[in-house]
C-alpha cells in the first residue's frame, strides 16, 4: 500500500511537469494546426535563462523566474517571426512547418552545446526560496518532495489562469475564434497576426516556467528537449488543441508510466506509452478531449 501511494505521488509529480510542457504544444496547435517541435528547446532555454539570472546576475528568485518566462516568450515570438511567418505568408503546407520547427530545435540545442557547453548545471539550492528547496514532507507513509508540491501548485495556478484568460476575456475569445477559423476571424476584424504572436508569447512564457521548474527539480542541460517528447505524447493523448485535455493526458500518461515501471518493468514503460499514442491515433485521433478530426503530426 505504501508503495502504491508513493508511486501515485511520483506519477502525479511527473504528470504536472508534462502538463506545463504539453499546454505549450496544445496552444500553438489549436491556432496554427501544426506541432511546434521547437517548444522543447524553448523550455530548455528557459531553464538556462533562470539559471543565469540567478547565478550570473544574482537576481532574487522571483525576479529570475519572471525574467526567464519573459525571455522565453520573446524567443518563442522571434522563432515565429523568423521561421514560421515566412512560411505562413507563402501558404506553405503544414509539413514544412513541422520540418522547420524540428530544424529550429536542433539549431537551438546545438547552439547551446557550442556556446554554453554540454555540462549539466545545477540550480544553487542556497539561492532558492524555502518552499522549492530540496527536502521532503512526510505524509503518512509517503515522501513528497517540496519541489514536487511547488511544481504541482504552480502548474495548477498557471493552467487555471490560462483557461480563465481564454474563456472569459475578450482577447481569449479572439484566440478561440481564431482557433476555430482564422480566415473568418480576420474578416470579423480580429487581428489574427497579433493573436498568433500572443499565442506564441503565452506558450513561450509557460515554457519558461516549465523550464525553470524542471531545471530546479532535475538539472539544466542542453538535451532537455528530448524529455519534452513525452509531454508532446501527453498532449496528443489528451487531445492536441485542448487545454484541459493536455492536463488530463499528462496526468494519465505519467501515472501509466509510473505504474508500469513500478509494477511491471522499466523496460516496458516506453513501449506502453508509445503503444498508447499509436492506439489513440488509430481509435480516436482527436485524443480524449480533442474536438477536431484534422491531421495530427
Amino acid at each position, binding site marked *: 500500500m*505504501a*508503495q502504491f501511494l*508513493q*508511486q501515485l505521488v*511520483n*506519477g502525479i*509529480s*511527473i504528470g504536472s511537469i508534462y502538463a506545463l510542457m504539453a499546454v505549450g504544444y496544445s496552444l500553438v496547435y489549436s491556432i496554427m494546426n501544426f506541432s511546434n517541435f521547437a517548444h522543447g528547446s524553448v523550455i530548455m532555454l528557459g531553464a538556462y535563462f533562470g539559471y543565469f539570472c540567478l547565478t550570473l546576475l544574482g537576481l532574487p528568485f522571483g525576479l529570475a523566474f519572471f525574467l526567464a518566462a519573459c525571455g522565453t516568450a520573446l524567443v518563442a515570438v522571434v522563432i515565429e517571426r523568423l521561421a514560421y511567418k515566412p512560411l505562413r505568408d507563402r501558404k506553405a503546407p503544414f509539413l514544412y512547418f513541422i520540418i522547420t520547427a524540428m530544424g529550429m530545435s536542433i539549431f537551438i540545442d*546545438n547552439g547551446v*552545446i557550442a556556446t554554453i*557547453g*554540454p*555540462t*549539466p548545471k*545545477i540550480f544553487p*539550492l542556497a539561492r532558492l526560496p524555502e518552499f522549492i528547496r*530540496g*527536502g*521532503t514532507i512526510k505524509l503518512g507513509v509517503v*515522501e513528497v*518532495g517540496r519541489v514536487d508540491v511547488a511544481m504541482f501548485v504552480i502548474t495548477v495556478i498557471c493552467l487555471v489562469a490560462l483557461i480563465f484568460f481564454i474563456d472569459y476575456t475578450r482577447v481569449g475569445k479572439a484566440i478561440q475564434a481564431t482557433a476555430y477559423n482564422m480566415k473568418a476571424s480576420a474578416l470579423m476584424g480580429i487581428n489574427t497576426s497579433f493573436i498568433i504572436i500572443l499565442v506564441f508569447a503565452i506558450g513561450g512564457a509557460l515554457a519558461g516556467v516549465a523550464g525553470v521548474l524542471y531545471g530546479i527539480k*532535475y*538539472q539544466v542541460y*542542453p*538535451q532537455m528537449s*528530448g*524529455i519534452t517528447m513525452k509531454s508532446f505524447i501527453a498532449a496528443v493523448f489528451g487531445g492536441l488543441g485542448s487545454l484541459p485535455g493536455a492536463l488530463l493526458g499528462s496526468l494519465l500518461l505519467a501515472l501509466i*508510466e*509510473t*505504474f508500469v*515501471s*513500478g509494477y511491471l*518493468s*522499466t*523496460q516496458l*514503460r*516506453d513501449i506502453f506509452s508509445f503503444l498508447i499514442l499509436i492506439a489513440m491515433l488509430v481509435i480516436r485521433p482527436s485524443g480524449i478531449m480533442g474536438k477536431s478530426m484534422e491531421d495530427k503530426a
Partner: protein
Amino acid sequence: MRAFLYGLLVACLVLVGCAGGGSKGDTIKIGWFGPQTGDSALWGQAELNTVKMMADDYNAAGGIKVGSKTYKVEIVGYDDKGDSTEAVNVAKRLTSQDKVVAVVGAQGSGEAIPVAPIFNEAKVPLVASTATNPKVTVTESGSVNPYMFRACFIDPYQGKVAAYFAYQKLAKRNAAIFMTIDDPYSTGLAQYFKENFEKLGGKVVAQESYTSGEKDFRAPLTKIKAAKPDVIFVPAYYNDVGPAAAQARQLGINQLLLGGDGWPSENLITLAGGPGAALEGCLFVNHLDMLGDTAKPMRDEYKAKYDKNAELNSYMVHDALLMVVDAMQRAKSIKSEDIQKALSTCDIQGITGHIKIGPNHDPVGKTAWLIKVSGPDMKLQESFAAED
C-alpha cells in the same frame, strides 16, 4: 552571376580537397574519438584535452623518436556524441580518410564494441581508454579482436571487487542493483557483480533499471525501497548516479550506494546535491587514486593548462597514448601493423598502474582502487591487487 557562383563552388571544393589530403612527411597522425557533445561530453573533452596536451609536450621536446627518425605528433580528434552509430562513422573516417597510424579513445563500451570490425578490417590498432566490457577485445564467439586493445581493467574484475568488498568488508547480504538497461557497460557490470555476490553467498533482492537520458528515477527506486536491500549497487555514469542518489534519499532510501568506474567525475558530488549530501560515505571502484602521488604531475599540468581538474578519462587516455608511443618506439616503425604487433607485447608503467597486455589484449593484473566519497573529496579507502 551563375558563373561566379560555380567558380566559388569549385574554389571551395579545391580548398576542402587540399585541407583533407595534406599529409606531411615527418608527422605521425594519431586518431582520437569520443563524445565532445552529449551526456558524457565532460569525459570526452577531458580526453581530447589530454591527448592534445601530450602531443604539445612531445612536439615541444622535438618530437617522438622512432628508430632513427623523429616525428612530430598530430592528433586527429572527432566527436562521436557518445553514440554507437556516430562512433562507427568517425572510426571509418579516421582509418580510411585521415589514415591515422593508431587510434586512442573510444571511452564507452557501447561505442568501442561496434567499431571493432572496422579497426580489424582497416588493420589500424585502437587502444580504448575506459571501455571495460569484455566484448571490446574479445568477440561474442570468443576470438580476440586483433586490432583492439585497452588500457583499463575489465568489468568482470571490477564487478568482483565490488561484490567482494560489499560482502566481505561491509558484511552486506542483501543487495539491490540499479542499472542503465540500454548500456552494455552498465548491464555487464551489473551481471558480474550479481554473479560474484551470489557466489559469495549474498542475495540480490531487486534488480531495477532505467533508460539512458531519463531524469526521473523514482518509480524504479520506490520498487527497490520495497525490497529492503542493505546495499545498492549502481553501475552507471556519474550524470545519472548523482541525481539518482538524490532522488533515492528523497524517497527515504538511506542504504549505502556502491558503484564502478562510471562514478568518478568532477561533477558527481555536485549532481548529488553537494558535499555531505546524498552520496556521502558511498564507495566506488576506480582505476587509480586520482588524488594520489602517482597522478600528481599530470593532475598539476592539466590544471595549469586548462584551469580544470583532470578527469579519470584524462589519466586513462594518457596511458592509452603512452602504450601507442611505446609500441611505435619498440617496433621502430610507424606502420599500423607493426604497432599492433608491439602493442600485444606491451609492458609499461603508466599513471594508472602497471600495464601488461595479456592474451586477450586486456591489461592483466591491474590494481583496482576503492574510493570513498567524503565531503567534497573522493578519498582512497582500499586498493585491491588482482590475485588471480
